[in-house]
Structures are given as C-alpha cells and as structure tokens.
C-alpha cells in the first residue's frame, strides 16, 4: 500500500527559492491590504452619503466582493478585461483581485466599527472648529482603526492565503507559484507542497503575533 519513498533532501534544496517566493507573497498581501484599507475607508464614507449614485456604487462593490468567490474576481480581471483590450499581467490581476476583495470585506467591518464611535465625538470635533476632513482624519479614523484592528489583522492573514490563487492565473514567482514550478519539474508534489504549507503557516502565525505585539504597543492608554 505504501510504496512511495519521500525525498525531503531534494525538496529542501528548493527552500531558498521558496523563501524568496514567500517574500513576494508577503509583499503582495501587504500592498493589497494597504490599498484595500484605503479603498474600504473611502467606500465606508461613500455608503454614508446622501447621493444615491455614490451610495449604490459602494453598496454594489461590497456585495459583489462578498458574494462571489475571490478566484472568480481574479479571473474576471485576468480574462474578462481582455474584452476591453486591457491585458493585465497575472501579478497585477492577482493584486487587483485581492484588493477588490479586501476592500469589500473591510468596508463591512468599518461600517460596524464606525457605529461604535459615538456621534458626539464628531460633534465635539466640529465644535472645536475642525472641518469635516480634519475631524475624520484626526478624531474619527484613529478611533475606528483601533476598533477594527483585530478584523484588520485577520484580513491580512486572509490576504496572504488568497495570494496562493495567483498560480491559477499563471503567476510563478510567489510561494505557491515557485512550489508549482518545482512540482512540475520533479513531480515530488507532496514534499514541495508540504514545505509550502509549513511556510504559509509560519507566515500566518508571524502576522498574528506581530499584530498582537503591535496592538500592545499602540493601544495602551
């Protein structure tokens, strides 16, 4: 039944390349989180507007991002945009797809967080003579980010896990892409993917730990 010999030594030789891939993965995830957070803040503000066009635009974005698979979103950016003559690279499609997804999920989190910031904060800020932009930037958003910090760090882990989808649209320099490259060269599927799984686990745990340290450092009164 079990006549398979594991070749870990060969697989371990690929570790430097895979670590490089892990760095690309981390970079992509971090970039998509940064962009996603900014877009999500914008969407949260748009959803509160009186203008129905802006509000519906934000609502549509959020509901599409939350109700379709992230792989589908990457697909439509990679294959679908060709209909308009836009040919994006697989990395760009991956980044845009994850950013779209992150923005949708985070906007929903931010909406909940915004409810937890008391209205009086805004009124107090305005009565101190701040304009709306100042009040948001200096009073509301810092408090909002404190409330949504935990969902934010969760979403960062999700973003890292989502970057593994890049391999399906042909990305070959992130962690999964490098692993798949070695896999098709040697057919040592189990060994390579086990190492990749371990690396992903370590990345996820590092993010969780880092977030905990950051929360401890940032949020003490």
């Amino acid at each position, binding site marked *: *039944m*079990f*006549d*398979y010999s594991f070749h870990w030594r060969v697989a371990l030789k690929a570790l430097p390349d895979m670590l490089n891939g892990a760095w690309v993965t981390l970079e992509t995830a971090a970039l998509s989180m940064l962009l996603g957070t900014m877009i999500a803040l914008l969407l949260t503000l748009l959803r509160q507007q009186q203008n129905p066009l802006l509000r519906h635009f934000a609502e549509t974005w959020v*509901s*599409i991002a939350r*109700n*379709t*698979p*992230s*792989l*589908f979103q990457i*697909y*439509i950016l990679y*294959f*679908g*945009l*060709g*209909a308009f003559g836009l040919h994006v690279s697989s990395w760009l499609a991956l980044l845009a797809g994850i950013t779209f997804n992150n923005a949708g999920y985070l906007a929903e989190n931010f909406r909940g967080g915004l409810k937890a910031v008391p209205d009086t904060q805004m009124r107090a800020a305005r009565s101190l003579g701040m304009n709306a932009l100042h009040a948001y930037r200096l009073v509301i958003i810092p408090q909002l980010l404190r409330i949504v910090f935990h969902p934010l760090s969760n979403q960062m*882990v999700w973003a890292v*896990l*989502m970057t*593994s*989808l890049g*391999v*399906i649209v042909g990305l070959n320099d992130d962690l*999964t892409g490098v*692993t798949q490259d070695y896999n098709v060269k040697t057919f040592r*599927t*189990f060994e390579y*993917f*086990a190492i*990749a*799984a371990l690396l*992903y*686990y370590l990345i*996820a*745990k590092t993010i969780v730990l880092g977030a905990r340290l950051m929360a401890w450092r940032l949020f003490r009164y």
Partner: protein
Amino acid sequence: MFTTSLTISDLLFMLQGAWVTLQLTAAAMLLGTLSGVLCGLLRAGLPRASLPLAWLLDLFRSVPLLIQFVLFNSLKSIAGLDISAFAVGCLVLGIYAAAFCSEIVRSGIQAVPANLRRAARSLGMSYWQDLRHVVLPLATRVSFPGWLNLVLSVMKDTALVMWIGIFELLRTSQSVVTRIQEPLLVLCIAGLIYYLMSLLVAQLGNRLEKRWQEND
C-alpha cells in the same frame, strides 16, 4: 455587436457545474458541521485537554485551501486510496469547514451564561440533560449567523476544487470560454449564478433565524 455564440447547451453545462458546486457545499457542510459541533463541544467542555485539537484545527485555518487540496490529493495517491477527486474535495472542504465551525460552536456555548447552567443543574438535570435542553438550544441561536456565514464562505471556496480537476461552476465556465472565446460574458454569467446562490442561501437563513426569534 450583440451577437454571441453562447448556446443553450453551454448554459446548461454551466448550470450542471453550479449543481456540482451546490452538492460540494452541502456535503462539505454536512461533514464540517457534524465534526465541527463535536470538536466545538470538546473545546468548550475540556478547554485544557483539547488544546492539541485546537492546534490541529488552527493548522487547517492557516494554510491556503488550494495547498490543502493539492496535499490531500497527492496523499491520496501516495496511500493508494481509490477515491474520486470529488470525495477528496468534499473531505478537504469538510475538514476546513469543521475547523471554522468548531470555533463558532465553542463561542456559542461560551455565550450561554454559567449561572443558567448552574440553575439547570440545581433543578436536578444531569450534565447531558443540561447540555441538550438548555445549552444547545441557546448556543444554536447565538452561533447560527456565524454558521450561515460559514456556509456562504464554503460555497465560495468550492471554486478552488477546479485545481484538482472537478468540473464545478467556475471550471465549466472556463471551458466554455475556451470554446467560444468570450470571457467577459461567460464569466459575468458565472458570477451572476454565484451571486444568486449566495443570495438564496442568505435569504433562507434569514427566514429561519426570524422564525426562531418569533418563538422565543
């Protein structure tokens, strides 16, 4: 400009893929809920002793699903098991769902006030009676929205099984794209189907939730 070579049979093919997606979701959720409730009860009842279980389940939450599919698929070949790709897909998705479900169940059980359980025990209920008649009905109501979210996320994650060669909705639409070369149209239809399925599940869930609240 508005001509298309998409035929009815292509659409039917895609709907068949959607049916596979639904089957996968149902099978994975069945497996995931049963084992998730079991693990969640263990986690809530014996928090110290079931710590290794928590670490194991955490592993499934921190590794990309795509990699889990590939790993299990190759493990199947290594062990010489003769099961279909569909079964592998169900199994992996089921374990993945169980990992999340156990957390949902655990937090639901912990949301039941300890005094309520003490009251139940002091009325003469046994541990199991207390669990069955007091804790579980209350915990179900607390954890149901989380469980519904899990169903929706598992339904979306079924898209990844295409990597191990199962023809579900996204894979079927890809092969239709390969044939008629109109990616935007076909993918939009696939997205619409996903959207409608999510909407349907969410609606059913909301109705159930409302009915429960009426009885309270």
